[in-house]
């Protein structure tokens, strides 16, 4: 029999959303644990560079402006009730982070300073140089240490478990260091395990971003939403796809084509380089496709910003440009291109992070919550504004954690049948028992990544998407026979990577399905064969349900509009 742990609330993932959720659940008096496949400070929240948005009213800003710009940025696909909450509660969360110890940049009066970010007319992005995510993550981890939250570090979650009523009752996981499997019983589970960038090649995302949480929730019966909405960041380094923060453009950097022109004039005459990310990425790709690029790139020019500003506010990217592109930002422009960066879609939740609808409007899994990049409220709709992702993690991480804690109070511990645990164990044993040689995880992953980038890039069309979808289908077949070379129990990364690939293939399938279904262009989903946004037919979300013995099932939910009717989107 495997070990059983019991907690009121179990949080999967220890990035910003996970830690924020765990702390909020802890404050409700619930017993809370965090389970994560890497140490919390290795989480990918680290990689967020530029900042975190909030409209602080005492600075003359209005939450309505922030909300409207978020909705416009989303190409009117975001649910406006969720966006309103995000914008209204942003200020209190920024201050809470500051009080916890985040060393936000200050202005001359010693108050919090701001910088500009894309898709927004006002400077409302609070920041710590250009490593805001890291500065936030380390502070939230400090708070987790202070609260003595139990963290199961380097544990790999393999599946959700449910009780006989179909309520989420915890997860099955194994400790990477020992291979030992355990059942984590919980009255509520919060999925905060981040994005799925590695489904694409290249991607700005870390190697751990393999969509585990998304796939686990999906297979557990929670629907995924907006999966076709994949953000391409306008400034990434060619090759591995490392990110150069939007903060550079926020501070005033230019985008130049091979002729040295600030080409954004043609595409977004008002906002220029600070138009929303989908718009800038498309503009760059057009420049490159029409022969005004340089070896598949355009240029990001920071030279006129001056050495002092670069040193103080863009230190990390200037270091990054030096280490990885061999370029001194103060001397030379750096070649960049659009690169896969963020998943707007994810596990469908309501504004309390619930992956089910208590009113029964849509089917989900009671007891399951989600927050952060793994979740889809939908806040970002077709395109996320820069510096809204960090905000989402703290606002909706907090809300999901609190709701999970309060929800758990009302319940007894779930009863999980021995059969469920046995099945989980056997499934893992079966993967480990694969042949030692043959098709490799690395090869399948690479082919999947290239196919996804090819088929679901900045520009999409039916033929390309169908081809990529077919490739992904055949890779799923190949995964079923993939070789596992390492047969050990201790730190078997060979096994871990095979399981991650399994999750990624689920993600890839749902991205493809969402994209071929949406026959319009909206936000990041831009089809050269359906150029227009089609509000008559597509002002709605696509939901995808997993079916264990058959193809996934599609469902639709209308976009929730509170005060901003769709308009033509110009920057």
């Amino acid at each position, binding site marked *: 029999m495997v070990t059983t742990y019991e907690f009121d609330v179990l949080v999967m993932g220890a990035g910003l959303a996970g830690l924020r959720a765990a702390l909020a659940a802890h404050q409700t008096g619930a017993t809370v644990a965090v389970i994560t496949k*890497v*140490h919390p*400070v*290795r*989480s*990918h929240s*680290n*990689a967020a560079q530029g900042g975190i948005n909030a409209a602080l009213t*005492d600075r003359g800003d209005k939450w309505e402006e922030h909300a409207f710009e978020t909705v416009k940025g989303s190409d009117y696909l975001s649910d406006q009730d969720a966006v309103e909450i995000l914008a209204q509660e942003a200020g209190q969360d920024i*201050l809470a982070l*500051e*009080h*916890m*110890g985040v*060393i*936000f*940049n*200050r202005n*001359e*009066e*010693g*108050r*919090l*300073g701001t910088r500009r970010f894309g898709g927004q007319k006002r400077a409302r992005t609070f920041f*710590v*140089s250009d*490593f805001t995510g*890291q*500065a936030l993550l*380390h*502070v939230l981890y*400090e*708070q987790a*240490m*202070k609260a003595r939250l139990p963290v199961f570090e380097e544990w790999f979650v393999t599946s959700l478990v449910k009780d006989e009523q179909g309520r989420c009752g915890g997860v099955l996981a194994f400790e990477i*260091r020992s291979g030992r499997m355990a059942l984590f019983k919980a009255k509520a589970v919060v999925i905060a395990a981040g994005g799925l960038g590695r489904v694409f090649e290249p991607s700005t995302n*870390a*190697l*751990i971003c393999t969509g585990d949480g998304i796939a686990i929730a999906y297979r557990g019966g929670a629907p995924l939403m907006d999966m076709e909405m994949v953000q391409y960041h306008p400034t990434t380094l060619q*090759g*591995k796809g*490392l*990110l150069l923060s939007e903060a550079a453009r926020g501070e005033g950097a230019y985008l130049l084509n091979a002729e040295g022109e600030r080409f954004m004039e043609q595409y977004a005459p008002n906002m220029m380089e600070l138009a929303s990310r989908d718009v800038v990425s498309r503009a760059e790709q057009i420049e490159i496709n029409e022969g005004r690029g340089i070896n598949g790139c355009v240029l990001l020019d920071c030279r006129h910003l001056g050495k002092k500003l670069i040193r*103080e506010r863009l*230190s*990390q990217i200037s*270091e*990054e440009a030096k*280490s*990885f592109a061999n370029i001194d930002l103060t001397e030379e422009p750096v070649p960049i291109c659009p690169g896969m960066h963020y998943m707007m879609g994810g596990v469908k939740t309501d504004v309390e992070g619930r992956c089910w609808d208590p009113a029964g409007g849509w089917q989900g899994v009671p007891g399951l919550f989600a927050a952060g990049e793994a979740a889809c409220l939908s806040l970002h709709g077709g395109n996320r504004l820069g510096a809204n992702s960090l905000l989402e993690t703290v606002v909706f991480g907090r809300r999901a954690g609190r709701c999970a804690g309060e929800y758990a109070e009302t319940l007894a511990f779930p009863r999980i049948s021995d059969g469920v645990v046995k099945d989980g164990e056997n499934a893992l044993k079966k993967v480990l028992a694969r042949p030692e040689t043959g098709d*490799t995880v*690395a090869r399948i992953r690479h082919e999947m990544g290239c196919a996804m980038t090819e088929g679901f890039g900045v520009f999409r069309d039916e033929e390309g998407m169908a081809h990529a979808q077919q490739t992904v289908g055949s890779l799923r077949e190949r995964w079923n026979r993939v070789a596992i*070379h*390492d047969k*050990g*129990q*201790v*730190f078997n*990364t*060979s096994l871990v990577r095979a399981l991650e690939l399994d999750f990624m293939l689920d993600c890839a399938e749902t991205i493809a399905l969402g994209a071929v279904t949406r026959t319009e262009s909206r936000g990041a989903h831009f089809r050269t064969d359906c150029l227009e946004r089609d509000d008559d037919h597509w002002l709605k979300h696509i939901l995808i349900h997993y079916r264990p013995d058959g193809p996934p099932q599609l469902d639709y939910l209308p976009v929730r509009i509170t005060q901003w009717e769709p308009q033509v989107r110009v920057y």
Partner: protein
Amino acid sequence: MQTTFHIRRFNPESESPQSYFQDYQLATERSDTVLDALIRIRETVDESLTLRCSCRGAICGSCGMRINGHAALACKTKVASLISSGETIHVEPMNNMPVIKDLVTDMAGFWEKIRQVQPWLQPTGSAPEGEYLAAPEAMNHLTGVMHCIMCGACVSDCAALEVNPNFVGPAALAKAYRFVADPRDGNSSSRLGELNNPGGMWDCTRCMECIEVCPKGVGAMDRIMTLRAKGIEHGVPSTSGSRHTEAFADIIEQKGRLDEPMLAVRTFGLTNLRQMFSFLPMIFRALPRGKLPRSGPLHRPIPGIDRIRRLFQRAKEPR
């Protein structure tokens, strides 16, 4: 370019779990990092090669390891910076921590020491309604230590830790500095008091290795030195460490060069008989070889001592 990677392997599940070296030959390109190469080995040659890695951009701190004898992030170390023509690159797990498998080390002890410095903000009084007011320079200054990604490189190569496992270590001390130097923290005195204990800030031997190997320019040793200065400023009770520092400066000011026996006496105290007797064997060995340094009145000030004293005066003037 064909490159040989000489990698220390360890599999705790093998029949005789002992570490050994294995060589891998790999074609590398100019732009390759050591991490690129290790991943390629793992993906195309030997899937069992085990390491931690994630961000590929020197921000997650996963891939700390020793490369050619010094701790570094594999993702930030270019192969081309290590070799010019076919030399072998040595890759080993970090030092000063147990190895779990191949290049993966157990960092539990590392984190235990971080927790030891109570690494969270401890303001006095209740939080203000808005933000804490703080000087922009103070916050900018803290970004230096906040750049720390807890990769463990400094701890791996810390010479003091190697002989003194009780030492809290450079990463934890840099973390402690982050709070002592934070104008919002109200607990500096008690933090410095804690760090004044054995195993704390005085146990650093100033070998500078932590500064040398840090991939993020945190400069742990410099932070430790500032902590010591702040400790003395805050009047934390004197320890052999702080007395050593004060006596050292004092002797140089008086004599212009070190009076080593006097330094030992003033550091440990003449009444600390056990410590004093422990020096006897060394004295008896040094004496017949003529290596016992002169001390007290026999240790004359150097010529030009006035200039040294003027330097001290100037250093003591308020800036």
